[in-house]
């Protein structure tokens, strides 16, 4: 296994597939990275030279991935909550944000939304405690 920027990448995988193991990189971004660095489509991680690995690390360092991306997403949701937007409130209530029906379904939203908010508590959120999800520990 190759350890790169805090992630264990499987050696025997093709580079464009291995890069998707990073949070924030999908097949399209992985393919673009391979094109930028001139890695052929069947190139495996184990075939890369040290110079190529350094180049790859350099390109990945320029991108927002892993914890940086998670922090950014979390901060975006926090910001929406703080400024009192509708979207922020929906996140806080753990309900769908994009106008979906809640009469039925909405299971995924109830499970996932507001998770980022539950991690961080600020004084401004306590005033809206009644709007928070019953699962919230901040009530």
């Amino acid at each position: 296994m190759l350890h790169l920027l805090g992630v264990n990448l499987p050696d025997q995988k093709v580079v464009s597939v291995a890069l998707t193991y990073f949070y924030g990189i999908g097949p399209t971004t992985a393919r673009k990275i391979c094109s930028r660095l001139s890695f052929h489509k069947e190139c495996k991680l184990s075939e890369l030279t040290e110079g190529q690995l350094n180049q790859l690390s350099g390109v990945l360092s320029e991108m927002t991935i892993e914890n940086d991306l998670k922090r950014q997403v979390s901060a975006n949701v926090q910001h929406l909550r703080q400024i009192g937007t509708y979207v922020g409130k929906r996140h806080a209530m753990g309900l769908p944000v994009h106008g979906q029906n809640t009469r039925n379904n909405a299971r995924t939203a109830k499970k996932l939304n507001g998770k980022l908010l539950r991690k961080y508590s600020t004084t401004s959120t306590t005033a809206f405690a009644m709007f928070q999800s019953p699962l919230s520990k901040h009530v």
Partner: protein
Amino acid sequence: MAEGGSNSKKLRSGTATAVNTVGANPEYYVSNVQTNLRTLDESTANDAHINKFMEIDGAFLDGIGKGHLPGVLEADFKLFGRPALLYRKLTQQLVDQLAKHAGAEATAAAAAVPKRASVIDGKNGAGKSAELMKLASVAAASGHIVIYASSTVSWVNSSRPYAPANDSDLFVQHEVTMDLLRSVASLSKEALGKVPLGKSVVVGKKTLAADKTLADLVEFGIHTPSLAHDVLENLLAIASAQKQVPVLIALDSVNTLWCATSYTDQQDVVLPASRLRLVNAFLPFFEGKAAVASGWVVGATSYVEPRFMPKDLRLKLNPPPMVPLANADVASDPSIARPASEVPFEVIKVDRLSADEAQALMLFYHKTSVISTPVTNALVAKKWVFADGNPREIFKSVTTYF
């Protein structure tokens, strides 16, 4: 693999077995038939061997490398137990052309007409790759400098490393080029040693003296991956200009020279084949911009991977039937679009097998236990007609159960 030994047998399916088959049930185990086949070389490539199976020289196959045989030939050779191909009338025509191009001491008339490359075209399974391989084998045996690529698909399908060139907008493939140089060195060791460079050749920081030969140049290229492209380009330039030793440039799947590759540039834009330096080295020969002074440039198309067969090339090679326009006004109207069918090379069509060739094929299959039923004229006629004379279709029809 118990092949060639006195107790060696194989299963009726054609698979060889290492099991000791002395006293084995003859219903299941068939003795390996020892067929004495002549090796295809310059002495045996003549009219007397038409419609006979001949073995490809082992040294030639070693030069190409195991696993690099074109198409399904490797599987076929394994099934037959030997690398044998049918010597057809077309093969003899190609061999005659090879001799004509090689021996072409220029008459003034011949020199005045620029030589065009030839491309062998035909349906899937017609035998294009096999014909090219036989031609390359005969050329190698008769002392040509043979530059033979058994499949150029690996040049364009993004399976081998590539990198942008430092000094141009082309892309280089050092490993593929080195493999090609190794193959050239292996197939034409003696021929390369007969041709001096003629002038000092500068490759990178190294200068090769004028008295060195092409063999030294190729050897240098094999050991210096970063300069392999420069070496190949110099090899093609010097070999095509000289007349001492004839040259055969044979590329299988030659349609890849004009295709959109699976490679991309740094902006993730698909690269056309002409952006690859390796392809660029051979393209002028097939576009009529370069020619060999003594020798021949041949290619064979392949329809196995349609993504590497450009649509316009396919149309040019197989133009739709065009009815001549009777009305002179309509015929002279420039807005009437008719598909272009002119190509910068000569097209040699591989036709269907003749009845005699089909019979020779089936008899060989019977001898090598690919089929166990006796080969009668009726069986040959049936298979030949239903397969429309296509060798691959005949093979499929005799080896499938249903």
